[in-house]
């Protein structure tokens, strides 16, 4: 629901994190007022009380005061640390991917948002989601930087070329909320956006049923894998297979030629398709051709979804280890806790 008041001071609070962000905001307003009062009162009182009464006066010198200086260095430091800790806690909550979230794939391109649900429904510049359900967006961009921003949910994340980023939220209130692109992306940047519809579960199911689903991402990926891109000719299994085994891959730790290891997450799978020579799995030859330029970001997410589906119960596997970058990643502790080879 849009706030229809005359001057809207606050956006709707429509996600689990919104209340936390607003609480932090009010705390900072309180700190600001508490800090400003002595300064502003001091300026006014001194300016009036000590206004010049004589031309070129020579008031008594005061050099400073170690005690006062220390006090007003120490107090701001302590207060700023409370602000830091408060912000850090909320930040962790915002970017720790929940387990068992409903996954939606989002691709940004100049100048639209394309979303595809796990059940296959596609939408453009709209996103329909059920209320009180953790939603995880896996996001990619076809061109430049974008940023998926829903002010009513108090969260956003950049979408970065060449990798996946993730955003999650849990909407708490049915309604229609602004969706923006918050990272400047060229000519029609301010037109790149639309609405997020938060629906009661039943309404959402009706919506899903009423929208022809076509193929699901996994089905599209399977089709690409087996027919269109012929990935299966090397990766299908069997004794003569030249490509690495993909069953049970997602979420596992992969040994690489040259000694390193990597966790097989979304980015790893994506990179292995775009740039196969980059991270070659131990025991295999670097003979796979690059599919760069032959697959769109949407097809890539479908392929990733398909590879993921080859690992049973992989939906809640880690997004990526924190060290590899990406704003929306799990803290390392959670990543390490995920079972090898998916759950």
């Amino acid at each position, binding site marked *: 629901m*849009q*706030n229809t008041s005359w*001057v*809207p*001071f606050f956006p709707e609070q429509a996600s689990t994190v919104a209340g936390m*962000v607003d609480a*932090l*905001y009010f705390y*900072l307003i309180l700190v600001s007022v508490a800090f*400003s009062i002595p300064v502003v009162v*001091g*300026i006014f009182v001194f*300016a009036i009380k*000590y206004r*010049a*009464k004589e*031309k*070129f*006066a*020579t*008031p008594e*010198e*005061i*050099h*400073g005061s170690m005690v006062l*200086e220390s006090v*007003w*260095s120490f107090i*701001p430091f302590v207060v*700023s*640390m409370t602000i*830091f800790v408060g*912000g*850090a806690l909320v*930040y962790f909550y915002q*970017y720790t991917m929940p387990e068992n979230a409903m996954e939606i794939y989002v691709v940004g391109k*100049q100048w639209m948002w394309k979303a595809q649900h796990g059940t296959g429904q596609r939408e453009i510049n709209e996103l329909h989601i059920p209320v009180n359900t953790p939603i995880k967006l896996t996001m990619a961009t076809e*061109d*430049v930087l974008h940023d998926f921003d829903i*002010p*009513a949910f108090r969260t*956003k994340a950049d979408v970065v*070329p*060449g990798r996946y980023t993730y955003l999650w939220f849990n909407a708490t209130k049915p309604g229609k909320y*602004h969706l923006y692109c*918050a*990272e*400047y*992306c*060229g*000519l029609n*940047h*301010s*037109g790149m956006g639309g609405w997020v519809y938060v629906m009661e579960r039943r309404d959402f199911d009706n919506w899903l049923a009423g929208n022809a689903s076509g193929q699901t991402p996994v089905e599209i990926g399977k089709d690409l894998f087996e027919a269109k891109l012929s990935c299966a000719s090397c990766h299908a299994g069997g004794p003569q297979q030249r490509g690495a085994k993909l069953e049970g891959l997602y979420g596992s730790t992969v040994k690489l030629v040259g000694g390193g290891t990597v966790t097989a997450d979304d980015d790893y799978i994506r990179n292995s398709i775009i740039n196969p020579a980059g991270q070659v799995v131990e025991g295999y030859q670097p003979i796979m051709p690059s599919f*760069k330029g032959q697959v769109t970001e949407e097809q890539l997410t479908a392929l990733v979804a398909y590879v993921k589906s080859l690992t049973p119960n992989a939906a809640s596997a880690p997004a990526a280890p*924190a060290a590899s*970058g*990406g*704003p929306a990643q799990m*803290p390392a502790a959670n990543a390490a806790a995920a079972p090898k080879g998916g759950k």
Partner: protein
Amino acid sequence: MQASDAISTGYGSAKGNYLTNGSTLASWLLTKDHKRIAIMYLVTVSMFFMMGGLYAAAIRLELLTPASDLLETGTYNRVFTQHGILMIFFFLIPSIPAILGNFMLPLMIGAKDLAMPRINLLSLYIYWAGGLLTLYALMQGGVDTGWTFYTPYSTTFSNSYVMAVGLGIFINGFSSILTGLNFIVTIHTMRAPGMTWFRLPLFVWAHYATSLVMILGTPVIAITVLLVAIERTVKVGIFDPAIGGDPILFQHLFWFYSHPAVYIMILPGMGVVSELISNFSRKKIFGYEFIAFSSIAIAVFGFLVWGHHMFVSGQSVYAGLVFSFLTMVVAVPSAIKMFNWTATLYKGSITFDTPMLYAFGFMGLFLIGGLTGLFLGSVGLTVHLTDTYFVVAHFHYVMVGGQVIAYLGGIHYWWPKMTGRMYSEFWGKISAMLVFVGFNLTFFPQFILGYQGMPRRYAAYPEELQVLNIFSTAGASVLGVGLVMPVVYLTHSLVFGAKAADNPWMLPGLEWRTSSPPPTENFDVMPVVTWEAYEFGEENGLDLEAARRSDVVTA
């Protein structure tokens, strides 16, 4: 009215001044006099400020209505980009250092000139070259990447004059580096006898800190622009992932310069305000050492917080936390300055001349600018606020509310010294108040708009946000009037203004102990400093009794 010549502790000269010493074009263009160079900077920088201001006016007019109607989006994108580029690289960065610093720093430390006068002239020519190239690019069609030049939009997708403008900024950067280098060498080697480090005016300390940032930070932006050029021309993958680069790398490099650049813009302003508050309350600055070292602390910590521009951009959660922590730490020295300025007023003898009104305005606006910086440094909150109008409002409070107000205060403060003329105090006060009111009306509503979620760089916005945008545009009109007025009455004063006394406010600083305007050599006799900074009593050697009797103009 002009009786002061008799009573100032004169190192000045009756033989003429730097303005009358040669009137040919060559005597200006080939001058080695830091004061003439500063005047030429003043003229050029003011022109860029006016251009940037016209772009700002266009932005506010477009945002009067929710739809993109006055300007189509492509034009709007160019307008806000060019507003940012002109204001930051060609106005804010050179404003106080290259004009007031150039003019006043040698005078304040008792030197005849900067240590390297030819390098100083060279830095002006480099600034002109960078500026002309940028203007040329703007006339050819301009640039639409945002002043941040984020990749891969700037390297691969934008069809605007990215390379020409980038080259303009690249060239301009060397002007900054040379100025910073010159200041550091000058402060180390050219101080008059008795002018010890802790007798330096805080304006000089602030310029020392600024210069450190200039010479250490600016090369990084030059390197970054060069890498963009290499990627665009030779197609080496540096920032564009399609050819093997990383767009986040660009952001790291860009902000490694551009965050410290914020301190290039604000530290000199803090220096000016320290002068104004101390001198117009005739009170030694409270905690001189704390203010001096807090400038250095800000300059050093300023290099460690660039990642707070990238909280949602793809760096790791842990990097975000570290940068948030450091951002909170860098807030402390600014808080210290705020308290010290306030405490300086205590038991002072405060006059409300135009420069002091600007100083009060600075304190109010920088207070809000600084505090809202805490909102943006608190990482969980800034995920919501980043890339919205909250950020726009915050940095305008710091850059305009801080630096521009301090710059105007400094221009009014030293105008009698620079030109030898007094401006209309009445119009000065009116304009200082209009700027303060207009500024708040323009930018305070933008904090609310930002919390509402209005993204920045939007040519069109939802209708429910229009009321606040109307306030903002109305405020911008008031601000515009307040900023145009000084151009008129200051120019007017050059011809019709009362002749300024050498030391109209009877202040202890060395710059006030020479003639107004100063002779080319600054001082006829080498000054010897026997007093501490900001001593207003008899120990500073000024004959205050005589000044009181002689009815020197203070306004």
